[in-house]
């Protein structure tokens, strides 16, 4: 079987491999190479070593600022999204009437694209701030909390669906045994339910973390970084470095490489961290 199939590489594997090479792998290696070069287009490339990586931090303070803004945003949203979605999941697994309708409604915002979401929330937040004579771009903290609210609105339903499935999979005899032993609500929650859904918590933490870190569309549509790039997140900062002004493509590419490393490291760290916790329990 394996021997015969082996000859069919060109038919089965090649289409995918070619697309993958063209759309991802070659651009990826080119990107890494170009991060060490000065260039405006691919015809005029000059090797400059690690200069771009230094420039990323020295040309202006925007990249460092975007990094902190993104970190703060990610920490806040990871916590709030997971707490809210887990709480809602607990409420929706009590066997109440209408549970399915609530689940359907809560999940819906997730399907709406980032650009559309950004504009929707811009109107709402500006509408609220109107009472105080402000707009979302008057102060970076409005943009920050606006993004946090938007992100929660979009992601809570999604994570909730995952938590609901996990809670429903907890063996009922485990919960019954706890009840017979006289364990209270919070004891059951912390010592049985949460450990039992730990794998889902791993997944949700991982997903909210990378979602927050990679956020772009919502950032672009909600504030586009205003005021004065104070609400610019990493992805948008990289985009603006590339396309905002000419001559900084190399710096943008260096920023993108560092961004990729950060995302990859976080992904691996987080996975390892929460996986080891699962074993302890």
């Amino acid at each position: 079987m394996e021997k015969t199939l082996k000859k069919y590489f060109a038919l089965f594997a090649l289409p995918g491999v070619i697309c993958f090479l063209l759309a991802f792998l070659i651009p990826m290696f080119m990107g890494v190479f170009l991060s060490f070069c000065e260039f405006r287009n691919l015809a005029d490339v000059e090797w400059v070593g690690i200069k771009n990586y230094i420039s990323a931090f020295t040309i202006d303070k925007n990249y460092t600022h975007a990094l902190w803004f993104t970190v703060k945003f990610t920490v806040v949203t990871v916590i709030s999204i997971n707490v809210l979605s887990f709480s809602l999941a607990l409420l929706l697994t009590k066997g109440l009437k209408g549970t399915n309708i609530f689940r359907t409604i809560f999940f819906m915002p997730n399907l709406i694209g980032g650009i559309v979401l950004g504009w929707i929330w811009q109107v709402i937040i500006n509408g609220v701030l109107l009472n105080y004579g402000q707009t979302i771009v008057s102060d970076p903290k409005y943009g920050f909390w606006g993004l946090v609210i938007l992100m929660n609105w979009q992601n809570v339903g999604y994570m909730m669906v995952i938590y609901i499935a996990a809670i429903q999979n907890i063996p009922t005899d485990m919960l019954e045994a706890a009840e017979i032993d006289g364990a209270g609500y919070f004891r059951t929650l912390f010592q049985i339910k949460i450990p039992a859904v730990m794998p889902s918590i791993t997944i949700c933490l991982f997903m909210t973390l990378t979602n927050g870190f990679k956020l772009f569309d919502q950032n672009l549509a909600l504030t586009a970084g205003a005021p004065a790039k104070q609400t610019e997140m990493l992805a948008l900062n990289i985009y603006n470095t590339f396309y905002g002004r000419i001559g900084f493509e190399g710096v943008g590419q260096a920023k993108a490489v560092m961004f990729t490393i950060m995302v990859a490291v976080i992904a691996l760290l987080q996975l390892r961290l929460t996986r080891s916790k699962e074993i302890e329990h």
Partner: protein
Amino acid sequence: MKTTPRVFITVFLILISFVVLFPIIMVFINSFKGSLFISNAPFSMPVFEGNAASYVGLDNYFTGVKKINFFSAFGYSLWITVASVAGILIVSSMLAWYITRVKNKLNSIIYYCLVFSMIVPFQMVMFTVSKMANILHLDNPIGIIVIYIGFGCGMSTFMFAGFIKSIPLAMEEAAMIDGATPPQIFWHVIFPMLKSQAITIGILEIMWVWNDYLLPYLTIGTEYKTIPIAIQYLRGGYGAVDWGAMMAMLVLAMLPVIIFYMICQKHIIRGVLAGAVKG
């Protein structure tokens, strides 16, 4: 005793539902109001008569559709989504079958590269991909399908491969003994078994491609605008936004998504759960 908290929880959940639906309802209501009334009084209902009449009927829809050429954007979005997702499903299911059944170094390298691509943010390759698309003449609504297949095949091959590993080899071997060639085995034995997987993966990819902004914007955006690109274009040069047209276009942009959700809700939720397992 036990009924009081139950009623309380239900009331609470209804309140949350309202909070969740509020932005969508608000955009819908505002899409019938004049631009000035949207930015000055976004939370008020349209006024139909008198000096402060803010109701403009479908005017916003007409201006918006004309301004951003909505139906052409809808067409591009639909074509790119359908063609890309179909392409991703076919290409990656074949690739997944091949690399799980033929064990060698090259195939495991391909597999790990695909897994790696799942965590790389688009900003890493956005410049080089758009240049590449330009050089290879993939910067059109047909060429972009190739790019989407390349990007999408990481996750979908990974998910297909995970499932194919659980299919016993015996069936394929039996078919082979009966004289079936690998393409016949794939299309008649393997692919039918991947059906529910394909629906799940397809839904995840549809949600991604339909809403994607940056990739189409950088590769084909100046000539061919998908819905997110068209909406973003409503922002004028100096931040001036025609709020009336914007509200109407947001409604039109959300409508297909909500209809899709109503029809495929079960599959979508299942897709989310399956997609979550990949982490």
